[in-house]
């Protein structure tokens, strides 16, 4: 079953997703991932690298991502205790094409993060592969490509980008 997605549908999907993350509704968020999904953040010096042979910042399969989310919901992720306040601006939505049952999309993001009197801004581009499943659109590859040259002075990326 190959569904097509138009730009309006993509915008609704990604803006709603951003709201889940800003509200720390992580169980609802992870339900948007397909069973075979990957959550990826490439290294800042190799943004076009392949996660199989390049040291990414994040390369989670679903087993690791489920654990990451379970940890973030608890109280011993010291880097997120107290929880960051985040505000995401997602824009420049593009439906780039279909590959079999997958739809390739992109969007730009800027995420402001506030915690313990520090302000950090994460800017970049989402490059996602989506699949339409009976319960709706799901991420098969959810990739956040940062434009930053280094994580300085951010120091860490401890929330879902």
């Amino acid at each position, binding site marked *: 079953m190959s569904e097509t997605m138009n730009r309006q549908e993509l915008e609704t999907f990604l803006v709603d997703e951003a709201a889940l993350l800003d509200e720390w509704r992580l169980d609802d968020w992870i339900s948007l991932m397909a069973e075979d999904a990957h959550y990826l*953040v*490439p*290294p*800042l*010096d*190799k943004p076009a*690298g392949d*996660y*199989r*042979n*390049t*040291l*990414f*910042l*994040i*390369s989670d*399969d679903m*087993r*690791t991502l*489920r*654990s*990451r989310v*379970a*940890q973030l919901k*608890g109280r*011993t*992720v*010291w*880097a*997120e205790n107290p929880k960051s306040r985040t505000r995401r601006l997602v824009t420049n939505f593009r439906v780039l094409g279909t590959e079999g049952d997958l739809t390739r999309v992109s969007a730009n993001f800027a995420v402001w993060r506030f915690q*313990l009197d*520090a302000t950090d801004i994460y800017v970049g581009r989402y490059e996602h592969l989506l699949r339409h499943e009976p319960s709706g659109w799901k991420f098969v590859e959810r990739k956040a490509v940062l434009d930053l*040259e*280094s*994580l*300085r*002075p*951010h*120091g*860490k*990326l*401890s929330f879902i980008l």
Partner: protein
Amino acid sequence: MEKSSIRNLIVDDHEQGVFRVRRTAFTSQEVFEREREAIFDRTWLYVGHESEVPGPNSYVTRTPGGRPVIVSRDGDGKLHAFLNACTHRGNMVARERSGTARVFTCFYHAWSFDTKGQLIGLPGEDAYTAAFDKQNMGLVPVRLESYRGMLFVTFDAETVDLVTYLGGARETIDHMLDFGGEDVEAVPGAQNYSIKANWKLLLENSMDAYHAASTHARYFREYIPAMGMDPSSWVGGGGKAFVGWRGVDLGNGHAMIEGPALPTPLDASAPEELARIRAALDDKFGKERAHKIADYSRNLFIYPNLILISFWRTVRTFYPVAPGYMEVDAWALLPRSESEHLRQKRIENFLSFLGPAGLATPDDVAALEGCQRGFQALPDRTWSDISRGMGREPLNTDELQMRAFWRRWHAMMLGEPGPTDCSDHPERVKGQRV
């Protein structure tokens, strides 16, 4: 900075079993400036791996000790390091992180240098007098030495050669590089981040097993079980954690924690290939040496600012930019010709724990930044206690390995020779400056 002020930064009382560091050592601008001249200008500093400059005319730019440097190969493939500053008026001649170049041209006035550092061209050369000697206007070379592909520079012509400098840590480096039975390479993808904390907090943290159970509770008590593994050898109660582990002073400020290898998620992900590699190590190195290479894990500290950790095969270095701010660079060093599957699994294992988005490092960053904030509470009247294990054979959850660093640090800050033996022994001898 006055010697008496430096002397008063540390209390090292063997009789009482007390070791304390005054917190101004982490907060003072004077200490920060003294460190640059007394330590970072006099030691060997890691700048990268040979595999990052793979062929003729390739280069990377790095800033060891806060100083912009080019590490490059010339057209014949020979390695060089130069100050990344034009000898005319100082502009950086290489402005990218890495690349290949037959010529480094400073865009400011178009002076150009070849890959051996020679000045080969400048517009309007006839404007200079006879005193201008083009031969002496090449890029300023920096001492560069390689130990098994690991590249180090020093800004001190007097510093001993690299192998002598590594001293008692050299054999451990060999053990930590030989795990795949072949040369390692730096995996593409660097982790370049920062911590709003003094640089010395990260070296303490990088060989501190005491913090694992609390700071990394989520990794060991949530992630490891989620991978279907039992974490008790890491964090189990009743003396089950870190059985057989110890802290070791390796001399010259180098130190490590070492013990029988503990299970990581990697073990189950490629059991056959890992068993093949283990058997091949026996054949290549003999059983005794292969045992030391493969059946132990280590966090190794090379003075003053290099960490190798065998669980995740990382190399990590870090520099102070200000008393309360450091920059960190980390890579994975993995066997050159291992299978695609094992390479991917090793990367996943690295990322599960390490790096600014791993399931452990961000909590270290939070802890260190919290320390630095805490230090603001009267640092000249408060102390960090680093006494653990002074009265016994030190475990990895003790703090000998940190004391070894601090003893070397203190001597160099005072401008005194040694000690090469940085252990807790009362008869500790003073040695030659390294």
